């Protein structure tokens, strides 16, 4: 992306919600483990609402909570 990546907007990852236990790593950003898909979706949505953030679903099935 070159120069464009240094321009606004700056994305900040606030949290990750995953169903794969070994992707839950302590530290920042917050990584949460969900038992099943509905719970994962719900957790991601609740976090995004609380933090006024956006949600990205990765192809591996994880949810990233991002703020622009």
């Amino acid at each position, binding site marked *: 992306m070159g*120069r*464009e990546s240094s*321009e*606004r*907007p700056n994305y900040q990852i606030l949290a990750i919600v995953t169903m794969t236990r070994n992707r839950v790593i302590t530290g920042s950003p917050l990584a949460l483990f969900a038992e099943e898909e509905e719970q994962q*979706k719900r957790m*991601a*949505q609740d976090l*995004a609402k609380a933090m006024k953030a*956006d*949600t*990205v*679903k990765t192809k591996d099935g994880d*949810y*990233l909570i*991002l703020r622009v």
Partner: protein
Amino acid sequence: MENEMISTQYLVMIVTGVVLGTTARLLTIKADYRQYPSYPNGYLIHVITGFIAASLGAVAIPALMTKNFVAVTFLTLAIQQFRDVRRSERESLKDLENTEYTYRGDAYIDGIAKTFEARNYFALVVALVSSLTIQILNLDQMWINVIAAIVVGGITFYIINRFSKGKSIGDIADVKQGKVEIKGSELFVDGIYVSNLLGSDNAAKMYEEEGLAVVIYPHQEHYRIGLDNFGQRQAILFEATRALGGKRYHFSRKEYDEGRIVITLVPITGDINKLIDTVKNAPVLESVKKSSSLMKTKYVGRE
């Protein structure tokens, strides 16, 4: 005491210059779809600075004619004052950056600030030319002098206004409606990938139902240089969100093969026609404008 008073001829010259110069500034304060400057305080500030610019232009000739050569150096003050206008405009717009739906971007702010500075020069030049006309004619019938000053001032205004007029996106590109598609959490417009920020079901549903998109097709290959510029795209996106409001999401994306640019958003109000008109009317920024004919020239540069 009589000798210290300004003569009627100079008084007419100054008043005509000030009135014409201020009128030139008034005519260039536009309240178009961009709604900037906003009424009434923005208007007042620019009319007053325009009046001061016109006054400086109008008194230059009488100052010269009375052999007051030092007084002409106050024109340098005018330049300083106009630079301050540019600086204050830039600061004011930068202060507002975090409160808008999206960023104007530094390139757009620079363009707006320069325009405000340039328009003060309109007032100065029109006032100067008007008073110069009266001085050159110097007829006994003062009203003929004034009418001639109005005509010459009007022509001057027309020429410099035309000279400084920039192009808009509609002049260099076609703007057409784009088809919004959601595939999983990814947003596509006319098959161009735009974003994967639509991770939640609500976001995808909202975009599918309410999202609007336009695709910009540059007329010429070299227009892509300007259109692909981040500042230019940000300016277009800003104008789109400013005109239609930004309910939730707004994105711009460039496509490399054909140089298409996607502008898409979920608006508060408005329809696709309003979005197309807004994008067409968005200005081509001075800072990104390139002259392809100049780049081809053999008159300058190395062999």
